[in-house]
């Protein structure tokens, strides 16, 4: 296992991206952050804090569970534990930034865009990820990337949050999901 991003670099990176968002859109007045469950939850709430610091107020934050929108939804085993999707306000005419931890095949993002459209018609949808890794299977790209990384086929990127912050690590595909010694509390 090797560290890709430690909590400090994640915090610095998210602050930089918050600034980029505000600069690119001349403010964040009609912005809504939408986390893709569950990977995007910790990243989006930290990003919201930075945006709040820059802008003086925090943008609304929602979350999407994309299980029912997966392209293999009806052929994969059903998932009896689907998390809640919570969109706090109307998305009509708003600027939505989808937030996820790792961009990989692009299939999750494809599903998230479909899910989003069922809640309204945003003016603009952008994608922000912590790590952009190789292995895309659909023509999807991120607008804000903290770190781009090419890893081997037998490796995987895990992002997790604990008391010290958000970590990203590269590890062997065969290793268990939770990195040793790192408790993975439920991130709100």
């Amino acid at each position, binding site marked *: 296992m090797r560290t890709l991003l430690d909590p400090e670099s994640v915090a610095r990176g998210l602050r930089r991206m918050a600034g980029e968002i505000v600069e690119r859109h001349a403010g964040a007045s009609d912005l809504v952050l939408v986390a893709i469950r569950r990977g995007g939850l910790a990243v989006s709430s930290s990003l919201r804090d930075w945006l709040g610091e820059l802008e003086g107020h925090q943008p609304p934050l929602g979350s999407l*569970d994309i*299980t*029912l*929108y*997966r392209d*293999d*939804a*009806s*052929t*994969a*085993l*059903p*998932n*009896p*534990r*689907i*998390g*809640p*999707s919570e969109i706090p306000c109307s998305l009509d005419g708003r600027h939505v930034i989808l937030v996820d931890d790792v961009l*990989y*095949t*692009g*299939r*999750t993002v494809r599903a998230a865009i*479909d*899910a989003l*459209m*069922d*809640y*309204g018609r945003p003016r603009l949808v952008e994608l922000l990820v912590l790590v952009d890794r190789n292995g895309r*299977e659909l023509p999807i790209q991120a607008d804000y990337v903290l770190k781009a990384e090419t890893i081997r086929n037998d490796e995987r990127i895990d992002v997790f949050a604990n008391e010290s912050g958000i970590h990203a690590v590269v590890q062997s595909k065969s290793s268990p999901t939770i990195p040793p010694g790192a408790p993975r509390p439920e991130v709100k």
Partner: protein
Amino acid sequence: MTQERIRHLLGIDDLNRDSAERLLDLADTFLEVSRRPVRKVPALRGKTIINVFFEASTRTRTSFELAGKRLSADVVNIGGSSSSTSKGETLRDTVNTLDAMHADVIVIRHAASGAAHYVARYARAGVVNAGDGMHQHPTQALLDAFTIRSRKGRDFRGMKVAICGDITHSRVARSNALLLKMLGADVALAGPRTLLPTAVESFGCRVYDRLEPALDGADVVMMLRIQRERLGAPLLPALREYARVFGLNATRLKLAKPDAIVMHPGPMNRGVEISEEIADGTHSVILNQVEAGVAVRMAVLYLAASEPGAPTDG
């Protein structure tokens, strides 16, 4: 992450406490779908669900139909009088025919107890029992448990539930008693002695031939529909007599807890088993039950129609 499939849901005995609770959790997700601006998710796109209702039903059939459609499945309804059954086809042949049309799920309502089990024995499709004779109506019990849970909390232990009316002929009573006992509730059954089943002890419930002791301190009061077609039969007293002795009214409801909820599977006979003021009163959660019905049936259909296969990541 636990992954599983419910191939058939024929009765409450197909579930255990754990799987029942997971199913109710899943229904929470689907309740959210029904409250969105676009009330549809693509989960069962390309799947076919056939509702076969040999017995008349508007509410249950509509609920299953909406549930399937909100999951993007293709839903076809077949009614008893319009089906080949009226031309003499056997149930076995009907099942074979639906299988040949590649149905993924068959939802069946039938007047004969055991009909759903019979269909499940021969069908390739998943089978969901939407009520078979005097036997079971599992999705009704699940939607009732869902409604109770959303009002009274997830822990059923020590919760007092009174199920009142024609217990013998009621598949709703049977499925509810089984499920609520499984979840840990304290269930009381009450009805005229002639309408209490002889083997009623096997449910493991308290049984009364009067309403009052069942209502005493109850958290949940569930009234059953008196089937008018049975009135006048030797088992039942006259309508007005029934209302007087076994109808739920404001005076009787005072015996229950102040925050008790009143349920009814519908359709109601206002003024018979339930008074107007109670049916429309603040204790009534009857319309919440209807909303819960679609969500619970979405969960059941989702689990029954999804095929085993390798989950992928992305």
